[in-house]
């Protein structure tokens, strides 16, 4: 009996047990398999979402604001990541000790820092945009609750150079003024958000499957030339100091492409510390401030008269020995003259002569001709806030207004507008749109020119250029003359309008001209606001033109981007009828 069950077990029970074990194993594997299928397929989406919610994070990658460069590729504005020192005061164990420790690296009084930490705020900036060595010192302190946070900062490596033209971007990288605002969208690019996983320790593990990248902004190449700009600003600053004037502006323009080669303002401001500067200095007056141009308007009035066939350069006018009555008003010349040719009227800047020329043209034709030259219109450079001055329509009966208009009163312009209008004489009679950007040319490709339609005949242009040369050779603008180079230009000494009338002591002295007169490379306008002592355009603005023009001739390419046709002039050294 005792052997039988053992034999039975050997024969039958053990295999049964094995089957049971195998059955359990099979069941177990089947269960695992089923669970795996459930997890990987049926519940996969729900579980993935849950996992993503728990561990996933998105990291925002801000595009670096692109560079602003000058026409030669020199950097005018560049962005970089810098550290700012932030604090969470409630997490700081000893705020007094922290303030004392941070005072040295941040260069701030510990009392000031303690005040910020004790203000009761949950978060506080202790200092933004700190220098790298200061950031390293703060980091070494290792104060819990004080942290370095990376931020983007805009740097202007040339300091105040071209500050009003370049403008500035705020702490969030948004252009707020000048070229920074004009080209904001292109400069900014687009930020990107990348998906990443954060582990238990908070380390961010980037997603390898779809590495999104921010779209970088596009660098912008402005038309200005840093060297010319620097020289022009120095010349303006000296003129400002010499004349104790309130403000000075210089605009240099390529007469064929319309590129603004330099735009200097004195005083200027440093965009690196714009929040500390006088806000009135942010304004690019060359684009946004209007003024009555005075005598710099005369060549344009004369050009309209010549083009209309109303006068010829050698026509003679009686300039009434310095006093001439128009309606109920007396027009005066600074220096009395008797008989003057049209050329001499421009050369010596006779108001009476200009008024008499305008009588021959008529008010409507005069206004119409000036409009064709761009007066009364926004120049169209795209600079933020750019204005176009004021030019009113006149009836023929408005004799005084017409006479005033002929010598630059009762009309307003901006410096950029006046320089662009002068470029019409320099380029042979075509209207010019001022351009902020450098003109680019691929090999064999035509330039995108700023030149507009012809607004003055070539014949008239030649005649006016001859008159403008006479101004510099023997007229009111001799201080603009350059030895070895022919200069053409016009002086202006405009009374400022104050308290409802023309001031007898506050003037805007100006000179707008170009060189070389036969084949101009640039047009430069110099505008000095309220100079003291000597106050005429010839005495105050023309010397600045001379200095900057000499430098520009040395620095700018010998040939303009577009080869112009040489302007044939008939100017004589004596400045007679041309």
């Amino acid at each position: 009996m005792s052997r039988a069950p053992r034999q039975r077990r050997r024969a039958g029970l053990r295999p049964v047990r094995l089957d049971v074990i195998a059955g359990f194993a099979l069941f177990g594997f089947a269960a695992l398999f089923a669970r795996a299928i459930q997890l990987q397929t049926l519940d996969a989406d729900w579980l993935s979402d849950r996992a993503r919610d728990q561990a996933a994070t998105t990291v925002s990658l801000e595009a670096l604001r692109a560079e602003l460069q000058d026409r030669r590729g020199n950097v005018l504005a560049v962005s970089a990541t810098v550290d700012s020192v932030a604090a969470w005061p409630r997490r700081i164990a000893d705020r007094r000790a922290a303030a004392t420790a941070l005072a040295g690296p941040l260069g701030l009084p510990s009392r000031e820092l303690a005040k910020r930490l004790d203000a009761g705020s949950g978060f506080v900036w202790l200092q933004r945009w700190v220098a790298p060595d200061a950031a390293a010192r703060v980091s070494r302190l290792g104060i819990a609750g004080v942290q370095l946070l990376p931020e983007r900062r805009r740097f202007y490596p040339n300091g105040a150079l071209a500050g009003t033209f370049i403008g500035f971007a705020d702490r969030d990288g948004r252009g707020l003024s000048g070229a920074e605002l004009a080209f904001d969208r292109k400069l900014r690019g687009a930020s990107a958000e990348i998906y990443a996983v954060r582990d238990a320790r908070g380390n961010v593990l980037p997603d390898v499957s779809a590495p999104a990248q921010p779209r970088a902004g596009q660098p912008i190449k402005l038309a200005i030339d840093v060297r010319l700009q620097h020289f022009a600003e120095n010349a303006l600053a000296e003129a400002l100091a010499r004349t104790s004037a309130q403000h000075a502006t210089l605009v240099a323009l390529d007469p064929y492409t319309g590129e603004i080669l330099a735009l200097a303002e004195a005083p200027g401001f440093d965009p690196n510390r714009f929040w500390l500067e006088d806000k009135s200095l942010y304004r690019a007056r060359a684009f946004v401030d209007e003024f009555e141009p005075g005598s710099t308007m005369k060549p344009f009035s004369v050009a309209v008269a010549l083009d209309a066939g109303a006068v010829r350069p050698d026509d003679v006018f009686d300039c009434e020995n310095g006093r001439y009555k128009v309606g109920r008003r007396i027009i005066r010349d600074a220096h009395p003259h008797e008989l003057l040719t049209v050329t001499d009227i421009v050369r010596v800047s006779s108001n009476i002569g200009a008024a008499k020329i305008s009588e021959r043209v008529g008010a409507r034709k005069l206004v119409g001709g000036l409009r064709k030259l761009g007066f009364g219109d926004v120049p169209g450079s795209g600079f933020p806030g750019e204005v176009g001055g004021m030019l009113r329509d006149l009836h023929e009966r408005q004799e005084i207004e017409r006479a005033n208009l002929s010598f630059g009163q009762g009309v307003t312009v901006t410096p950029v507008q006046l320089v662009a209008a002068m470029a019409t004489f320099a380029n042979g009679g075509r209207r010019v749109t001022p351009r902020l950007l450098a003109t680019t040319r691929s090999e064999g490709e035509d330039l995108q020119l700023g030149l507009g339609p012809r607004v003055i005949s070539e014949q008239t242009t030649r005649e006016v250029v001859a008159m403008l040369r006479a101004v510099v050779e023997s007229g009111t603008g001799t201080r603009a003359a350059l030895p070895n180079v022919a200069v053409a230009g016009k002086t202006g000494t405009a009374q400022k309008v104050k308290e409802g009338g023309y001031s007898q002591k506050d003037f805007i002295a100006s000179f707008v001209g170009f060189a070389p007169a036969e084949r101009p490379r640039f047009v430069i306008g110099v505008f000095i606001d309220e100079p003291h002592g000597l106050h005429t355009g010839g005495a105050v603005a023309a010397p600045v033109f001379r200095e900057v023009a000499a430098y520009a001739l040395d620095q700018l390419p010998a040939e303009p981007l577009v080869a112009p046709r040489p302007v044939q002039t008939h100017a004589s050294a004596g400045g007679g009828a041309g």
Partner: protein
Amino acid sequence: MLNSRLRRSGPLFYALLALALGAIAASGVLVYVRTRLTSLRYELGRHVEQEHALQLEVERLRVETAALEAPERIEPRARTLGLSYPKPEQVVAIDETGGAPHAVAAGSAR
């Protein structure tokens, strides 16, 4: 007996064994792949951080270069070396048409 029993239920047993071994092997591969992926992610994270640090250095150097090129910095140094701007009298505009340079006499302002 056991051998004969195994022989009888052999195909099922070997199938189960193969399934178990396959599942274990697959699990091992899966664990290895997951571990490797995580490790690669850490490595990638380190490289991204490294790239970021280098990018910051490039940005800083770009600012420094631009500041060093500023005319306001260069001009005083050039002056100490005896360099100066050419005077207006020293500038001659070359006439590309072949004509003689135009001479103009300077005078007084009016």
